Structures are given as C-alpha cells and as structure tokens.
C-alpha cells in the first residue's frame, strides 16, 4: 500500500514505534527500528468504493477490501491498512499540517492501535508516586485540566486524549503519549496565567496546547487508579469505588474502536476493558467545578491513590 520514500523519521508514541516520511514536530525522534505503524503523507485525495462502517459529526469511517478510509470532512482523510500497520495521510486543500498532525496523533493513531489489538481509551493520565492515575470522562468534565494541574505541580504527564494500556506480566502499564495537554482558554489562564502564549491545537478550534513547563513521563507506568470523572451533584469532592457491570459500561463508552462491525476488534476491546475492570482499581470521581478548589481536589486524589 505504501509508496517508497527516501527519507523517514522514527518516533515512539503510545508505546509503539512509528516511522513517517515527514517530520512530526510534537514527537521526540528515536533511533531507526522495525515500526509498528508506517505513515506516508500525500497531497491528493483518493476516492474509494467502500462500505460505511460508522458516521459521526466529525468523522466517517468506511471499509474497502484491504483498507479503511477515515474522512474528516473538509480537513483531511486517512487511508489505514486493515491490519493497522500502514497509514496514508491525505490533506485537503487549505488544511494546515498542524491540523493534520493533530488528527493523526490524537484521533487516527488511537484508532489504528485499537486495530492492532491495543486497549485504547479517551482520557488523560499522570504519573503519581504510587503509579499512574487515569482520568476518563465525557468532554468538559475536567480530564485535561486535572492532568495539566498535576503536571504543573511536577508530576509527569503520561497522556492527554489517548491512553494506551498493555499487560506486562501481572501489571497493567499505561504508556506515554507525547508532551502537552489540550485546554480551553479559562483552564489555560488558571494553569499558566496567559492563554495567548500557547498554540492552537488546530485552526478554527478554541483549544490550545499547553506543553511548556510540564514534565513528561518517558516510560510506561503501572496503573494505580482508574478514575471516571462524573458531574458533581454536591459541592464536595466524592470518590466511590466502582464495581461490577457499570465499570465495563463506562470503559466501553470511552474506548477507541476503529471498526465496531469487526467482531475480532470488538472482542479484543471488550477483553481489554474487562481486564482493567477486574483490577479493582476503578473509581467514580466527582470534583467541584471550581478552579479555586482544584489544589484541594488534587491533594485528595494524591492521597487516595497512595492508599492500598
């Protein structure tokens, strides 16, 4: 599927090596190796006859005999091999490379890794002294703000947007993504004092990337807590253990799955979710929606994560 290319850059992200025929400035390069994903960039769009497998407001996914097409209308499309090992990025006219890199890193690669059998969730994660704390929740619940706050206090950031797990012996490891959290203006103002100093994640969208002054975890960290952020019904912070079927339900709602019609991918995703649910490390977390109380919430999380 790929075209030959004379120049390539190798990176590590989400615990995988990737090779690209264009540099990806958000990632730190690594020595050449056998990559899990190969990425080629082209300017022209490719039309396929395909079966639509999912249609959302911002993306459509269709399936051909050997590939998937992921289309972000008006922005870009990506052709992904069925085994998830090869990606071709097609930019639409007028779309900046910044936007395409954001779509590639934060949306396409998570789906590609799901295709390869990884457990991939939408959320953020930080490395606390007791292990990795993962924050999952719907948009606007404060996942990135919480991760950014911890990172600002010197606890290394593991990921924002995409969390990849792997099983290593009897441990579940959380893999580092790449430096930076994506924040709304008010969160950035609170965390760094100045919204305008930080680049937009992509053109035409309000979120900005906050990366400077944040420590980043270079290596995988064993899972310590899996928090599901939920709206707070009271002004007080609450942490409650989650057990049983509800844990898996929350996880399935937060997972990246490229082809929900593919029984093998669906089964692998389900097995990933249930293996995390069985750890007994899953909690429902409600924090006050008040920046002035974020330090107090973070302190309680820190102490909660340190308890057996």
């Amino acid at each position, binding site marked *: 599927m790929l075209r030959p290319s004379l120049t390539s850059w190798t990176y590590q992200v989400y615990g995988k090596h990737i090779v690209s025929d264009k540099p990806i400035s958000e990632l730190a390069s690594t020595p050449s190796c056998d990559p899990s994903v190969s990425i080629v960039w082209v300017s022209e769009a490719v039309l396929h006859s395909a079966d639509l497998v999912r249609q959302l407001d911002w993306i459509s996914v269709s399936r051909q005999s050997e590939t998937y097409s992921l289309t972000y209308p008006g922005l870009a499309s990506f052709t992904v091999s069925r085994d998830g090992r090869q990606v071709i990025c097609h930019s639409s006219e007028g779309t900046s490379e910044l936007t395409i890199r954001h779509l590639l890193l934060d949306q396409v690669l998570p789906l590609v890794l799901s295709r390869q059998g990884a457990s991939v969730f939408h959320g953020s994660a930080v490395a606390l002294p007791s292990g990795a704390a993962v924050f999952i929740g719907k948009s606007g619940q404060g996942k990135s703000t919480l991760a950014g706050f911890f990172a600002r206090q010197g606890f290394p950031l593991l990921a924002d947007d995409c969390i990849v797990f792997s099983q290593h012996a009897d441990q579940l490891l959380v893999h580092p993504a790449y430096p930076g959290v994506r924040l709304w203006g008010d969160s950035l103002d609170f965390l760094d004092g100045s919204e305008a100093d930080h680049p937009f994640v992509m053109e035409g969208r309000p979120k900005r990337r906050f990366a400077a002054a944040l420590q980043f975890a270079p290596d995988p960290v064993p899972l310590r807590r899996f928090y599901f952020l939920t709206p707070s019904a009271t002004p007080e912070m609450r942490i409650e253990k989650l*057990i*049983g*079927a*509800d*844990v*898996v*339900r929350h996880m*399935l709602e937060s997972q990246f799955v490229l082809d*929900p*019609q593919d*029984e093998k991918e*669906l*089964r692998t995703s*389900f*097995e990933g979710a*249930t293996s995390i*649910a*069985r750890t007994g490390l899953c909690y429902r977390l409600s924090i006050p929606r008040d920046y002035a109380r974020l330090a107090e919430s973070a302190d309680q999380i820190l102490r909660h994560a340190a308890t057996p």
Partner: protein
Amino acid sequence: MVLDLTKTWVASQRLASSEIGSEAVVLNLVDGKYYGLNDMASRVWRELQHPRTVHQIAATLAAEYEVSEDQARLDVVQLITELHNRQLIEAAP
C-alpha cells in the same frame, strides 16, 4: 415468542462475556450492545456456557436459592426468553 421448553440452549458464539466480581457482563458482537447481568441472571449465564434445558437450570437454581422448582422455572423461562430475543443464546444442535 413462546419458548419451547424441551429445547437445549447455549450461549451464542458471536459474543464476548466475562465476570466482574459476581456479575456477568456480555457484549453482543453482532450489534455491539452491552449487557450487565444481575446475580441470578449471572448464575443462569454460567449454566448457559454449556448446553442446558430450562428444567436443568431451574433445578440448579431451586437448590441454590432455596425457591420452589416451579418458581425457578418461571424465572428461567422469562430470562431465557429475554436472552434469546437479544440473540445472546441459541438453540443447541
């Protein structure tokens, strides 16, 4: 649908299931729908990992939950009908 009480039923092949504590969780791989089963339903689900008749499952439940076999049979018929309607079980060959 009126259930044929003489048939033998078994969990469908086209699903993934697991146990989280005492609760069974099931994902239908055909339509992507997810189900969490309560304590008694989870017990029935464990039985259905192998071909079983309504009468066999009801006898097991009656012994374990200290209910009459008639009451257990009513509960099992209701649950098996629901599982069948959701394509989570199929008639065993």
